[in-house]
């Protein structure tokens, strides 16, 4: 059956170990979240502060990229093992995304 799985009942020690590992991982997620909030604040503040667009645009794009990496590798667990094919899919998608955006912004004019 497609839902078949091997059942392993953990010993008390194993169980406590995995619970500890998970709460440690959760603390890491909270740290990622704090960084994401911080990056968002920097981006909005930089724009509100009215610096030159040529300075701010690359900075906020970089902040967005960092935030997306935190989402993908932290919240979406792409850093865990067993995500090789996932990374292949996503990077292929990003590559096509990059080409699409590059093509349209350079080819379309008004």
């Amino acid at each position, binding site marked *: 059956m497609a839902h078949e799985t091997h059942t392993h009942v953990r010993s008390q020690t194993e169980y406590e170990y995995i619970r500890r590992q998970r709460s440690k991982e959760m603390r890491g997620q909270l740290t990622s979240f704090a960084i994401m909030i911080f990056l968002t604040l920097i981006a*909005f503040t930089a724009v509100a502060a009215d610096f030159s667009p040529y300075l701010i645009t690359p900075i906020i*794009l970089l902040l*967005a990229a960092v*935030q997306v990496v935190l989402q993908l590798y932290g919240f979406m667990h792409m850093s865990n093992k067993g995500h090789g094919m996932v990374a292949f*899919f996503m990077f292929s*998608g990003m590559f096509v995304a990059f080409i699409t955006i590059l093509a349209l*912004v350079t080819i379309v004019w*008004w």
Partner: protein
Amino acid sequence: MDLNKKYTPQSWPDHPETATMEGKNKFIGFWLLLAAETVTFASLFATYLALKDKGPSGMEFAASNLFELPLVFAMTMILLTSSLTSVYAMYHMKNHNFKAMQAWLGITVLLGATFLGLEIYEFNHYVHLGFGYTHSAFSAAFYTLVGTHGAHVLFGLCWFIALMVRNSKRGLNMYNAPKFYLVSLYWHFIDVVWVFIFTVVYLMGVIG
């Protein structure tokens, strides 16, 4: 084997979302969908960037005098927080704590609904100003990009609610664990897209 087989926190697998063949297939197939969605949104972003501030000559609306950052900031914080609450839901899913997972999913749905409400308010506000879908190439590209994201939020909310209601009496098992995991992945992906929307559309729009 019975799909409704009962588990305890001690017998619950480390990675319940990929413990079965069905779960593995769902997992890989869903990530392929997310990669395809990346391309979908890229084409909408590309269209928006190409047509930003473009339209009939003498049009009064431009990104730099239309968008209001406080509302966008609130929406960003709400969606980002809802991403964290769905991480909490998955934390409890992995600990086989069904009630706590449902509670965190409920909070996620409330935050998502608030986000959607603010987006509807924003669109309604723009339309009343005279910035409708057919106003210009700019408005059409803007509404299509941000509206497609909003439609994803709506779909995500319906998905969350459907899973929560359908499985409310069932508890966590090998049948529904992958489903809960995928909806949370979908929700994070929606947040990923929003990060680019608030940066490229709103922040880069305001600085001109």
